């Protein structure tokens, strides 16, 4: 990629990641939530891969680490759901609900948002890595 694209990527990729984390953690106060934030975090890594090539992006987040995060997010979501049995039924909101409009309020909802963000972000990044690896071996195989 050209020099302009590489410079702009170096300046903005950290800000995109930070914006994604903001949307996830404030999911219960303003619009957003786990799914949109997870896709934004995946997009920041994809941006890095499009500008610099797959080797540098895979050094930042290898495939085994992405697979670990995806499974960890799914298991965390299920564990939070099963722990609701403490209060009575599946998915019961058992954490203390603080005052509204605070960051630490609304029970299990911020924890669920973080779990879903990890799952969606890591999964979509793994899909893009698989697509890139396939086309690169196709190109090498055809030559």
């Amino acid at each position, binding site marked *: 990629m050209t020099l302009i694209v590489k410079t702009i990527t170096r300046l903005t990729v950290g800000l995109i990641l930070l914006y994604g984390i903001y949307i996830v953690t404030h999911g219960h106060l303003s619009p957003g939530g786990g799914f949109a934030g997870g896709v934004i975090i995946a997009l920041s890594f994809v941006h890095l891969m499009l500008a610099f090539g797959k080797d540098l992006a895979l050094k930042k987040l290898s495939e085994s680490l992405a697979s670990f995060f995806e499974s960890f997010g799914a298991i965390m979501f299920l564990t939070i759901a099963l722990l609701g049995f403490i209060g009575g039924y599946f998915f019961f909101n058992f954490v203390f609900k603080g005052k509204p409009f605070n960051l630490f309020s609304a*029970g299990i*909802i911020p924890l669920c948002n973080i779990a879903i963000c990890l799952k969606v972000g890591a999964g979509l990044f793994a899909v893009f890595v698989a697509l890139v690896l396939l086309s690169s071996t196709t190109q090498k195989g055809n030559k």
Partner: protein
Amino acid sequence: MFELYFLLLFMILGAIIAVEMKDLLSSVVAVGAVGLGLSVAFLILKAPDLAITQLVVEILCLIILIRATIRRDIPPLERGKEVVGSIMVLLFIGGFLFFAYSALKDLPSFGHPIMRVSQNYLAEGLKKTGATNLVTSVILDFRAYDTLGEATVLFTAVVGVLVVLRRIGRKKVGEIVKEEDE
């Protein structure tokens, strides 16, 4: 709601361009324009959660579609279109639109919904969950089981993609199989 009609007209024109263009890259760009118009339509209809999600999902879909079509743009040989098939499809669509128009009269008019369950959610959402974003409280507290199902669907799709795009499989005669880490 003049701007909503205008936006829908823009989306219909974009869809017609995406369907009829022969160049694959141009039709992918046109479908991207339809998706971005949909995101603005969600904003006009007072749904900011959906507008953010539709925007970023649309961008990711565009990146994956362009990645799939950019070096494989060989136009197929047009050996004469099937005229009989097209006419039958157009007749079917005409019949469908006619019956849909007479069925749409039973719906409540645009702007006055019957919110039988949502009155409950709006009145007691803050008290029962403590979250001020009522859409998040619906998807993660009142209907969290659906979110569990959606997480499962996403997981299955990712596993499916990683299985389809493997290189280790059957070996043909004379083909060199490269060992890939996944």
